[in-house]
């Protein structure tokens, strides 16, 4: 019987993976991927709670949907930024981007 705790553990692990990627990857795009992973972990939690904690209302799922859309927006803007950075700085390695003005 799969309990709520199992889902939460899974999401914790996925979150940790995402965090590791965000913190240690040099490539801007890899960091964005890490962020996507972390957001997905959050979504798993939301939907899991929706099923186990408050099945009546679909609030959890709505919240997950909103998070997905916002993740899409975030990815779009993030990638646009990476593109712009690449165009003017010829690098998307985050540690090389240390100028305040492009």
């Amino acid at each position: 019987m799969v309990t709520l705790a199992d889902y939460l553990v899974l999401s914790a692990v996925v979150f940790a993976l995402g965090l590791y990627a965000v913190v240690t990857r040099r490539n801007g795009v890899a960091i964005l991927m890490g962020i996507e992973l972390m957001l997905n972990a959050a979504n798993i939690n939301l939907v899991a709670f929706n099923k186990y904690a408050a099945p009546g209302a679909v609030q959890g799922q709505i919240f997950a949907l909103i998070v997905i859309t916002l993740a899409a927006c975030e990815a779009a803007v993030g990638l646009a930024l990476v593109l712009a950075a690449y165009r003017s700085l010829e690098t998307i390695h985050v540690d090389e981007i240390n100028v305040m003005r492009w």
Partner: protein
Amino acid sequence: MTPYAWLIPLLPLLAFALVIWRGDRLPGRGAYVSIAGIALAGLCGLVLLGETAFGRRADLTYQWVVLGGRPLTVGFIVDPLSAVMTAMVGVVASLITIYSVGYMEGDPRFSRFFAYLSLFQFSMLFLVLADNFLFIYAGWELVGLCSYLLIGFWFERPAAARAALKAFVTTRVGDFSMMIGILILFLHTGTLSFSGVFHGIAAGRIGGPLLTLAAILVFGGAVGKSAQIPLHVWLPDAMEGPTPVSALIHAATMVAAGVYLVARTYPLFVQSPGHEALTVVAYVGGITAIVAATMGVVEDDIKRVLAYSTMSQLGYMLMGLGVLGYTAGMFHLITHAFFKALLFLGAGSVIHAVATNNMKEMGGLARAMPVTFWTFLVATLALTGIPPFSGFFSKDAILLAAYAQDRTLWLLGTIGAFVTAFYMGRLTWYTFAGSYRGGGHPHESPTVMTVPLVILGVAAAVLGFLESPFERYVRFPGVEAPAPNAPLLAVSVLVALAGWAAAAAIYHWRLIPSAALRRYLRAPYTLLVHKYYVDDLYGWVFLKVGGLVVLLAGAFDRYVVDGLVNAVGWLTGRLGWVLRFLQTGREENYLLLIFLGLVVIVLVRLVR
């Protein structure tokens, strides 16, 4: 004349102003103006002496400024003590100024010499007539300044310049301690005038050990100025100045100022508990007397011998004052002024003749310079205390007072008298007896120099007899001179004669050749030649200690002060270096820190 007493110091001041301003263009290149100035002042002094003798007293005060609610009254005082001093200074100074016209003949800075002399005379008279500590201190400083100027008159000679500086600095040390004494008194009694301070002491505003301390500090000034033991090193070197200067300043007047100061502030010393201050004065005087006398024995320079003799006689005067011989001390001061001035002027005319100070290069001058010889002999006899000359009366009065008060001091005084007689005899024989050993051909000085010698000779001979009127005239209430004691007088005369005999034996009949004596008494001889190593001691102390202090201060400044500043700099640098890791400007570092912080917080929360 008494109400116009302030006029007396003014006359030499005017002379000084005139000579400085018009100098060479004045008749006699300023000499006559200076002589006129001091002669008039001396005359007024004598008139003042007469009036005070008949009981006239005056305290001319003038309110100068209001110091924080307390009026500062300053002015002049006319009483027997100041009158006597004014008269003495006036007479002696005029004679010496007349003498120096001859002595300073042909000196390029002739007029400036007389300007300085007038300035000195003004400051001495100002000091003597002052009725408050402020004026006496001002006079004290001015006199010190003039002594500096006059010692270093021939400043092109480095020895003179060094001597002047040494004199000024050493006396300044004394002046400093005197100032502290005056401040203590002012602090407690709230006033600077003598009468005010003495009333304050009588009213008990200041007493006990503090009073003794103040008295000793004021006496410090006297020690500095009168060249007593700790601060005596400058007097022998001061002989670099022209001889009339030595005669006037370093024999008669300035050095006597110290004794006059003690006399003027006598209530301070008397009221100090158990006469501690007085015994200090007495012993300093006594020791200086015997030490100076012994140093005089080995000197070859005629002026230095006389300098040591002055130092020793000043010791006697202070000893006299110290053993409650107030009148004896003062009387000796007056008589000493006359015959010591004469001795110096005599020496001056000898030097003028043979152009050298060294006694070994003189001899047989009696025949060449009869007037100088005879006046010199009279003064020597007076100095060594041979009756009927003045020295006998004043010195014996001191010995008498010393015998009554403190037997050891009396013994010291008597031995001092013997040594004095010995070195004076040695000096006389070296200079005047035997055959002439010098290069030049000695001749008698011009009359402008010999006339003052004769007058001073007469004074040295006659003054002794004025002792009894002097005693009635200059007295400190409550301090009685002891009754004369015949056997004591006999002893002192015998001692003096013994001194003379010893000198004659060695230097006249050559029973014991001085060279053999010098070999035999090798140790004490070298000790005396090196002036008890006092100069070396001061040199060593100030150089070494001073050097050490300088070294310490330098090190302190470099390591502690600079060290601190550098430490602060280093600290901020190190702090910055640490913070550098926090401010890397890379987002992932900050992100990592955020999550690290999160983990730490949770762990802490779990642990607690």
